[in-house]
């Protein structure tokens, strides 16, 4: 029986007078690549921010690694944070640091590894995400968009997380970089035993790398199924979404 890394029950969120989420339910089992899609304003980002403890939901329950995020103690929250990695939409690399320093930064602050170990592990992550070795000493602004995304992925992997959140990882990448990035996601999932949650609009990319896709609309998860089935779903919102995109 698969275990659920994330369990969301009856999540409510409101923006002004409008419901963003209303009684939203979602389970994410261990070892799955799950994508969350939906039209603009359907609350994907709010859902992600709620899961990341960046925004407190109005009502409802979110459990990550079996811990309820509501009224969680600081120590437990820190423990959860140490087990996930996040890749932000605009990479969010620290601009004052080189790529190597960006990846070493969480290790420096959170572990007692020696400098040499930190550096070796950081270089390891750099080669794992397919960046050339010389990128290590470059600053984020010296990298192309695709390389920045890879560097951000390397930083998200710095602490060897079990759970990886990717916020629009392939948006703004050229098709070749996007495909390489998808292959990277699958490789990482298989070799590092990750559970991956992706927020994305890129259907081609979802077809390549996801196990299942959750479609959010009307404040709920309207469907949770593999992308091939989702494309054939007759729900008007879902059908409209795919007809607009393809």
């Amino acid at each position, binding site marked *: 029986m698969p*275990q659920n*890394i994330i369990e969301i029950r009856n999540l409510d969120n409101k923006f002004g007078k409008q419901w963003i989420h209303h009684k939203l339910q979602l389970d994410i089992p261990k070892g799955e690549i799950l994508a969350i899609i939906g039209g603009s304003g359907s609350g994907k980002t709010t859902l992600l921010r709620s899961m990341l403890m960046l925004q407190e939901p109005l009502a409802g329950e979110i459990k990550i690694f079996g811990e309820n995020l509501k009224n969680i103690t600081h120590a437990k929250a820190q423990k959860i944070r140490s087990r996930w990695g996040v890749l932000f939409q605009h990479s969010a690399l620290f*601009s004052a640091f080189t790529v190597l320093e960006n990846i070493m930064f969480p290790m420096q602050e959170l*572990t007692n590894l*020696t400098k040499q170990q930190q*550096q070796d*592990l950081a*270089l390891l992550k750099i080669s794992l995400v397919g960046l050339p*070795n010389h990128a290590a000493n470059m600053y984020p602004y010296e990298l192309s968009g695709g390389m920045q995304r890879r560097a951000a992925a390397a930083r998200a992997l710095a602490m*060897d997380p079990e759970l990886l959140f990717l916020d629009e990882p392939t948006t703004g990448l050229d098709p070749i970089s996007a495909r390489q990035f998808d292959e990277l996601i699958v490789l990482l999932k298989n070799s590092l035993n990750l559970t991956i949650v992706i927020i994305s609009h890129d259907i081609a990319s979802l077809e390549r790398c996801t196990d299942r896709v959750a479609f959010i609309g009307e404040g709920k998860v309207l469907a949770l199924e593999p992308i091939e089935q989702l494309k054939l779903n007759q729900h008007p919102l879902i059908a409209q979404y795919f007809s607009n995109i393809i």
Partner: protein
Amino acid sequence: MNVNISIMRHYLPPTVKLNPENNTIELNGSWEIYSINAVEWPEITANSHKLTIDASQIISLDSAGAYALIEFRKKLHARNVSSIVIGLSADKAELYDLISSKISHLKPQLNQEEKEPILVRIGKEAYQKYLQLIGLLTLVGDLLLTIKHNFDKPRRFHFDYIFSNIAQTGIFALPILALLSFLIGVVLAYQMGLQLETYGANIFIAYLCGMAIFREFGPLITAIIVAGRTSSAFTAQIGSMKLNEEIDALETMGLSPTEFLVAPKVIGLTVVFPLLIFWSNIFGILGAMFMGKIMLHIGYHDFLVRLRESVGLKQMALGLYKAPAFAILIALVGCFQGFRVGNSADSVGHQTTKSVVQSLFLIIIIDAIYSIIYSALDL
């Protein structure tokens, strides 16, 4: 198969046990990034040339754990001890192989900064300063051209921006400026009063404070406060716009950043600066009057009459003449440093600091130049 790992796992410290009888090392515990530094590796004596590393009891393994194990085997290898790893479950073995294939390519390359000879560094720095000067002059030229073109189409002056700049840089600075000027007036009167009292020349307090405040302190305090408040704000605003590519967006639309960002700031500050100096003068004199009354027992009326007779409007005007120079300088330096912001959040802070320091530096230089001119003209 170990199915019952609870979702909230327990970390067990990783342990290593050497069994000398059959040359086996048994590994135990969680081999993860938080714990691998706690591993105490056993001393390997020279008589064991072949070691078996039994990893079947490992609870969890991540890439840092695999790295630690690989490093240990490298050390063994350096001592001519060969080793094999047994007992890794399939997914852990896959991770281990991936890491060990990647780790052989690691080439640590840290930035090695070459030290240049001192003369080269001085030369480079001087050239940088020269380029900065050229940049500032370019901005001045661009600004003058923009203002000249604006007269063809007065709408281009963007009066709404000018007014909002006047509010931001002028009106909102009034309280702090009043308070500081008042305090300076008090301190000034106190220090002079100490001397005057010994000569019994109490009434000269009006003349001395009036001269000092109108000619120097009013303009200087205003300039210092505006430099701290406004020039830094200009730099931070333009700098973050540059980081966010907003400046590039303006350029590509065919709109001039100078017209939208620099000209309203320079014009607004130039308009409001003399008023700020006047405001500072009022409160400086109030502070001096207050202290004169308390310490030297000079009535407010006597003080003001004496001020008008011995100092007069002419001295105040000499202070106000400094306003345009200070205002244009502060606004230009603030904007110029904003445009020099590079690609990192760090450089916003760096240039903001620079803009305040440079404005203060240049204010004092300009003030000195004014003094020279005034004394040459016998004013």
